[in-house]
């Protein structure tokens, strides 16, 4: 049957059906969950990129002269290592700035025994490179500490990965709930139109012909609801992103959605429509198989 005639066979009175609202709400919530997941995954990746292969060498010595001499030796040694791509001593002004939240202006006191700190970037991220650097540093400054940034931030990274998995779980649950709603709606529709379907059956309609009628109807409801839900969700996501960017946090800025993430979000309404159509078709075909 043509689409125009399919539209006429089931009584499709105008107006928005409950199914449309359900699809709009489902898709709205799913897209928010997906955006959260994609954002946290992006932030976790950005964090990994920032921290991977970065070290800080601390030289702790109460005597400022010995400390500065050790720092100079460590700097010179690090510059000779092939694993090291960048090395820079953290200057006194920067250390004072970092200490200000805890010590206030006292942090600027030249008599304060502040450790010398050296930032190191490695070409690789493997443990062997870190171990080689640590050996070389301790060779010239036995009391120096070598800290991997990755070690400090791994709990944060872990939380972000958990959030990503949680968001994925929510997306899958919402998809399942949507399919369940479609199944219920299709069964209700089958009951409502039972008389018409029986007539069509006796006229020689196949199960797929009958299923197509419902599939088409569900697709229209899902499309209208999907566009509405997706539109509102995108507006909310943009608003949240704008506010997060205003915070100036490097970590949160890493959670900005990429073009791939937007494409994924954009594909979700289409995915939902397809899911709804498949669920409707499967329900109707299964129900029809119980008849002769």
């Amino acid at each position, binding site marked *: *049957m*043509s689409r*125009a*005639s399919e539209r*006429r*066979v089931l*009584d499709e009175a105008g107006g928005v059906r409950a199914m449309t609202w359900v699809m709009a709400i489902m898709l709205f919530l799913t897209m928010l969950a997906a955006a959260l997941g994609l954002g946290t995954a992006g932030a976790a990746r950005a964090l990994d990129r920032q921290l991977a292969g970065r070290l800080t060498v601390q030289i702790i010595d109460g005597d400022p002269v010995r400390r500065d001499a050790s720092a100079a030796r460590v700097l010179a040694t690090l510059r000779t290592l092939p694993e090291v791509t960048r090395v820079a001593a953290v200057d006194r002004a920067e250390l004072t700035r970092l200490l200000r939240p805890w010590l206030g202006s006292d942090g600027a006191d030249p008599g304060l025994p502040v450790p010398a700190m050296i930032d190191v970037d490695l070409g690789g991220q493997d443990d062997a490179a870190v171990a080689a650097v640590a050996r070389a540093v301790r060779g010239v400054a036995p009391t120096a500490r070598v800290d991997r940034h990755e070690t400090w931030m791994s709990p944060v990274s872990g939380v972000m990965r958990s959030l990503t998995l949680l968001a994925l779980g929510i997306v899958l649950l919402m998809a399942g709930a949507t399919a369940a709603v479609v199944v219920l709606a299709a069964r209700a529709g089958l009951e409502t139109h039972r*008389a*018409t379907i*029986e*007539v*069509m*059956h*006796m*006229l*020689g*309609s*196949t199960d797929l*012909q009958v299923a197509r009628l419902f599939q088409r109807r569900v697709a229209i409801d899902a499309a209208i609801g999907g566009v509405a839900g997706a539109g509102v969700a995108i507006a909310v996501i943009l608003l949240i992103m704008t506010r997060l960017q205003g915070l100036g946090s490097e970590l949160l800025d890493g959670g900005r959605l990429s073009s791939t993430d937007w494409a994924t979000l954009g594909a979700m309404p289409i995915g939902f429509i397809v899911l709804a159509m498949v669920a409707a078709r499967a329900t109707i075909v299964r129900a029809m*198989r119980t008849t*002769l």
Partner: protein
Amino acid sequence: MANIVQFENVGLRYDTGAETLSDISFTLRSGAFYFLTGASGAGKTSLLRLLYLAQRPSRGVIRLFGEDAVLLPRDRMPGFRRRIGVVFQDFRLVPHLSTWDNIALPLRVAGMPEADLRQPVEEMLAWVGLTERAEARPATLSGGEQQRVAIARAVIARPEMLVADEPTGNVDPDMAERLLHLFESLNKLGTTVVVATHDLHLLNRIPTAQMMRLDHGRLLDPTGSLQYPPSPRAEP
């Protein structure tokens, strides 16, 4: 003429009740006209339901268009049903479709392109005298008009067999005669016609018709050789 339908010792039981039809055996020849008579509750509608594949028998063999209809797989049923036109006792028109669309439904189900529907549907509307009522919904049609729409819908796809359940039950005698003429015209075009009725006056209208009589779920002449007019001993 070849046999289009063959029943052999067919029985039908709904759930666990007594048999509604018992030991039904008969043969319908292609292109013939049959009346199925019997009192209310004799099993006419059940027998017709077996004929138009709305029901499988509890036992026995049914051969339809040369194939075993009892063992017919579900996916082949639609193809068989398209070869049978059915006029239901309660018409079963689709209430939100116009007369035009109700009549066009079998052609659409069969996959005919929309552009090709116009001619056969309008021919059929003219044949049943409903051209002026093409856009009317069933609820606005009289009983006789609805009956004619149901008949037009049953025959538009030129079925090999037409099955009609009490097609004149809801119309006045004049309309009943007109409808019977429609069936007769169709029969002359080669369609096998089976009309279930308890109106014995109708039987006189088609002299060439054969008659099958049901009584309490049994065919009165199990040989299937009853000819019109019925023998006096078998007259209900």
